């Protein structure tokens, strides 16, 4: 079920160009590309049956996958900036700021700010009538750091320049030095509010690599915390969206719902962000789920009433309709993931398409809308909250007995490449582990949904104005920490 490629399979694909073309023809969805070093990269696509298929390509210049899969472009830039990988026909200007490298590569031992930051890429539009307004990296409110530069022509934003990477912590560089036991601890903190999904993807990859089967009770408990994570994040994103339409009382009530959910999670796991549950081989401790089904039902009643009140507020619905349109064709070509993709007709959900753990035994609805506007994204989240609460109830009521954890290996197989995934709040989370000849981790890739969706965002701002931008950005609800890593 999960892709485990042992020694024989870490072999390099002889003809990556025709392999990519074949996958394009069969309608595969592009998932990720990551540099392993200056001459190797791993490609992952997902087939029509939902299975994730990785392959490794090597060469001084790798084929340009962006001609077949447009979303590959930003991954190729990342691989070049961070791992020195080169691609046929693409010249990266070392004198211009990249997404992740804002300064020239520091010499060993040099101070952090030894070099001046590189200049931003020259704007495509310039001249007298174009007004440029920078917004960031320090933005309004208690939000994450990024830079958006608006190019105004009259009343319209004709272009939005997006500069990310302010939060780049080189997390993927640190991960291979963690012990197997510490891997989920690190993964939980790469993107804090998506911690459970990140830790799950990481653990799935380790478990695949070492051939462990997780006990059913642990699978069920993992699913419960993963769904609780989805619920509080969705309340938070809905709250930000409501606040962006200046409906203050409505926003406060979303905050209250989020707080109740986080408190429910803290009562269950001890941690407001549900950390310290997911471990390699199972879960770290048992959770007392008596009363959880009742709490979930209560939350569902409150959530339903709240969503109905929002739907009945014309002022709110009108502001979202047709705002921040992401056309279904574009979303499909890009392979947009998570609630953003599902609001534009891309019906992917790893829990259903490539099921893992307790989701194998669950039948549930994956809400999909075709409108592609902020309202559709809002409705996807509302419905997902209800589906998640249903799943929590179902799983808590039929929780299997049994052990919580099988012992994890202290080392991994040699020369292996293993894949793990989970459906996070903002789209699928994919982990790729690569080990060297001694069984030590040589590379860890952790890609969340926000990493995939952020490069798609600027297009939806074009030809709108600033009030729409605020609503549009809130409706995407993407995490910067998850992108920058």
């Amino acid at each position, binding site marked *: 079920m999960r892709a485990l490629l042992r020694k024989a399979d870490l072999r390099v694909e002889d003809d990556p160009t025709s392999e990519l073309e074949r996958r394009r023809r069969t309608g595969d969805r592009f998932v990720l590309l990551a540099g392993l070093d200056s001459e190797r990269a791993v490609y992952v696509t997902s087939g029509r049956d939902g299975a994730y298929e990785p392959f490794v390509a090597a060469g001084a210049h790798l084929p340009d996958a962006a001609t077949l899969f447009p979303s590959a472009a930003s991954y190729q830039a990342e691989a070049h900036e961070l791992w020195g990988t080169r691609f046929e026909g693409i010249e990266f200007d070392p004198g211009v700021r990249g997404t992740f490298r*804002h*300064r020239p590569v*520091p010499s060993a031992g040099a101070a*952090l*700010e030894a070099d001046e*930051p590189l200049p931003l890429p020259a704007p495509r539009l310039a001249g007298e009538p174009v007004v440029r307004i920078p917004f960031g*990296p*320090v933005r309004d*409110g*208690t*939000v*994450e*750091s990024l830079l958006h530069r608006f190019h105004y022509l009259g009343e319209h934003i004709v272009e939005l320049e997006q500069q990310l990477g*302010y*939060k*780049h*912590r*080189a*997390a993927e*560089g*640190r991960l291979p030095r963690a012990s197997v*036991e*510490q891997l989920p*601890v*690190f993964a939980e*903190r*790469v993107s*804090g*509010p*998506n911690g459970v999904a990140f830790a799950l993807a990481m653990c799935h990859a380790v478990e695949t690599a070492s051939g462990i089967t997780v006990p059913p009770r642990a699978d069920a408990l993992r699913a419960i915390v993963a769904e609780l994570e989805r619920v509080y994040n969705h309340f*938070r994103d809905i709250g930000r969206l409501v606040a962006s339409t200046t*409906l203050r*009382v*409505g926003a*406060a*009530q979303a*905050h*209250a719902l*989020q*707080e109740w959910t*986080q*408190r429910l*999670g*803290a*009562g269950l796991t*001890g*941690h*407001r*962000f549900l*950390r*310290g549950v997911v471990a390699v081989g199972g879960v*770290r401790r048992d959770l007392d789920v008596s009363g959880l089904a009742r709490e979930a039902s209560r939350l569902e009643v409150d959530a339903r*009433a709240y969503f109905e*009140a929002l739907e*009945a*507020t014309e002022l709110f619905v009108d502001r979202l309709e047709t705002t921040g349109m992401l056309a279904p064709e574009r979303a499909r070509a890009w392979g947009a993931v998570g609630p953003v993709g599902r609001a534009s007709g891309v019906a992917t959900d790893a829990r259903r398409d490539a099921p893992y753990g307790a989701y194998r035994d669950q039948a549930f609805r994956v809400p999909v809308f075709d409108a592609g506007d902020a309202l559709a994204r809002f409705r996807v989240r509302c419905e997902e909250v209800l589906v998640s609460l249903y799943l929590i109830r179902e799983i808590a009521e039929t929780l299997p007995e049994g052990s919580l954890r099988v012992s994890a290996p202290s080392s991994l197989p040699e020369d292996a490449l293993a894949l793990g995934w989970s459906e996070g709040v903002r789209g699928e989370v994919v982990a790729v582990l690569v080990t060297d000849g001694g069984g030590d981790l040589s590379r860890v890739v952790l890609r969340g949904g926000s990493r995939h969706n952020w490069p798609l965002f600027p297009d939806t701002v074009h030809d709108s104005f600033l009030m729409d931008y605020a609503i549009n950005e809130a409706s995407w609800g993407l*995490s910067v*920490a*998850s992108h*920058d890593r």
Partner: protein
Amino acid sequence: MFRWIARGLRIGTLTTRFPRQAPEAEALGSPLPGIHPRGPERAEALRGASACPTGAIDVDGDGVTLDLGRCIGCGLCWERAPASFVEGPSYGLAADRRAGLRARARWGVPPEVPARWTRQMPSLWRRSLHVRHVDGGSDGAVEFELAQLNAPQYDLHRLGVFFTSSPRHADALLVTGPVTSAMVEALRATFEAMPAPKLVVAAGADAISGGLWAGSEVTSMGVDAVLPVDVYIPGSPPSPLALIDGLLLASGRRFAALDRRPSLLEVAR
């Protein structure tokens, strides 16, 4: 609009009595470790120290030092060494100097609780403290908790603490994350734009010491390396209660429920 007013009235008041009273049990969560009230046990404490991903536990010849400024609350220490470390409190730990976050215990002797507050803040900010937040590369969770301070359950405004957009209006700069090389300039510029007198608050283990990312080639070892820090709020992320505690200490206000830090004897089960 009428519908929303009616809904609000129906829901009623949700706000915590903290900090005038101890917080409700359900508001607790995201704990940090403490040294066992009976004192650490040598062989076991070493096991706990080796499990720690950030090196927050330092074992020497006489005993153990636990640095909450580096601790990310992963719980591996109290799982591996339950006779030396316990699940401790999640709030009431903010300090005005780095040493106030270090607990020390000799083998078999109850830990010494460090003095966390040694400085008298000016009375200027007691009734109103305006805070500018800068994200220096956090994992995003602290921003969730900061936003939750505006939730009805916490309602930070009632305590005279406000988040402001303009650094010109700000009294305190609250920094999250280890400060990445890309954010150093923006952070400095924000600090310089603030009028004196001003405070710097480092919230979370990443901001205090670099946390998990300390030693990476693109992050500094916490805010200290860039700006002078006045208040440290440990946690990963600090819970809303811990943030309220730290912000009130920054504003020079003291409350009985905060002054009495929950003792380790109370939290050890």
